[in-house]
């Protein structure tokens, strides 16, 4: 067995690869939670605002957040598969 293979099997058996993956998953989950909270917050203030310019800005933020949440979910799915 080559040294590289040995290290690879050692990291696998010690679960070090999973550890890295788990860290990434945790980061994504935390971020998704923050983004969802923010999305909710923006949606609420969008209902309250009457100024057209402000509404436009909030709508834009909402569009961005929706895409970010979508991207985050995709990464999470990839990590889970």
């Amino acid at each position, binding site marked *: 067995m080559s*040294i*590289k293979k040995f*290290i690879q099997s050692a990291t696998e058996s010690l679960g070090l690869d999973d550890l890295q993956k788990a860290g*990434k998953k945790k*980061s*994504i989950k*935390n*971020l998704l939670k*923050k*983004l969802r909270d*923010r999305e909710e917050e923006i949606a609420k203030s969008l209902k309250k605002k009457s100024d057209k310019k402000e509404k436009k800005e909030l709508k*834009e*933020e909402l*569009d*961005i*957040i929706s*895409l*970010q949440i979508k*991207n*985050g979910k*995709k*990464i999470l799915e990839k990590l889970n598969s």
Partner: protein
Amino acid sequence: MLRKILLPSILVILAYGFWVSPDFKEISAGVAIFLFGMLTLEEGFKVFSGGTLEKILQKSTNKLYKSIGFGFVTTAIMQSSSLVSVLTISFIGAGLIGLTQGIGIILGANIGTTTGAWLMAGFGLNVKISAYAMPMLAFGVILIFQKAKSLKGIGYILAGLGFLFLGIHYMKDGFEAFKATVDLASFSVGGLKGLLIYIGIGIIATVVMQSSHATIVLILAALSVGQITYENALALTIGANIGTTITAVIGSLSSNIDGKRLAGAHFIFNIVTAVVAVLFMSQIIYAVETISAFVGIANDNHTLKLAVFDTLFKVMGVLMFIPFVDKLVNFLNKTLNTKSLKGENNFDSVKYLNDSALELPSISMAVITKETKHLYENAFEIITHGLNLQRHNIVSSMPLDEVVNKEYSKVAVDIDDFYNKKIKGIYGEIIDFSTKAQSHMAPEDIEVLYKLKLANRDIVEAVKDTKHLQKNLIKYSKSSNEHIKAQYNTMRRDLAELLRNINIISSTDEEDVMLMLLSKAKLHTKKYDILANGTLDNLIRKGLVTNEMATSLMNDSAYAYGISKNLIEMAKVIFIDNNSELKSIGEDMLISDDEVNTILDQKERT
């Protein structure tokens, strides 16, 4: 000059010594092998110092006693206070720790070096140490040839220890054989005169060998065979402790201000401790005798007594200094400040880059990132003034329309002058440092470094674009043609918004805020591009601007677009990629160019 004379003199003395005495040759070879072992050992520990060491460092140095503990443990493990000093200088330079913690580590490292004397006196001199050296060397060298970084590191550590042991063996053997021909003990000098002479010899030996550890091991080897007297060995130990600070001071000459301050602290600490030790020599010897008797060290076991002395002397120094650490920090900050070292000119220079940081890839990466941020701060100033805006307004919560109305100056600022004084030099140094750092880095680190270099280039490009933009911007933002004036002021407003958002990104810890602002910046850059959104066509078609104005607007909007793109790319690298939570996911979480287009298309339709 001194260096030019010193090296040939040492070589001549050694050559003469080798010629007249084969035993001297053996002792010198022992010292050389020992020093080589220390270098190899340092090389091995460096492999393991990336990332993990920094994390431990930040957690274990937040209190002075923890810093001292950290210094003690790392030096005891690595058996090299010079490596710990170098690491500490680079940690301070990289802003990972402050000077107080740095001094704490140095104090701890001083005590840590005493473990070497204990190992040598208690183990090295009592067993056939070369028997341990041989397998270590054999296993070590095999592992050094492996590709895996960690195995290579273990290999260097094993080989390093092997060489250390082998060196001790040769020193011991050399002194034993030497005794048969020359009795060095007959040259011993007693009293205060002897104390001062041997302190001087200890200083010289340490400066020449660049290691107090090696000097102490040599002293113990000579003491174990009775080639020097116990009293003279004590003086040599004090000398070695002073000599090591001279090595540190010489080493700090090429380092930055933090390195100089730390070397200053090291120097003051060791000199004061040595003076106190000389003044209270008889009391310390009495204490050594008492402690030795208490722990059961035989009366004639001078090597172990020397280890007791070494420990007592250094612990006493640390205890003496602990109450004054803050005062020492203030004193060093006052005496060694950047003004006292820098001439009076307006040229800004690098703040974080220093050669000591090159020792560790993770540290060099950290200092390059910090320096890039420093470069951006300067660029922020230039871009803001180039846009005729005031910096404090941009970083405030003032409405952007008001920010645009408040001019920085009635006349155009000299961006070339700014560039030469605040960008060019620092940029050059970052690139130069990066090239040097790259040679110590693994391929994955080089990839990160490459991105950082690109971020630096983006900053410089943004400044250059500002210079091109400035000429017409000043002219048309005050034009009597309301349409062109509005376009240039919109350009200023959009760039002010971007600068404000980058400022928020740089200071927030909220990852979602970072991602939102940067995604928004990406979207706005595209949205406000007057070439793409049809504004320019509209102005020309309706004859609202002259042909000359239209050409200027077209060129300048391209510059503004360039500034935005470059600054966004830079922010992505230095703020998103360097955020511990976003490091591996930030890129994917930002909206892509296609997604920007989707949002803009949706807007057009509604």
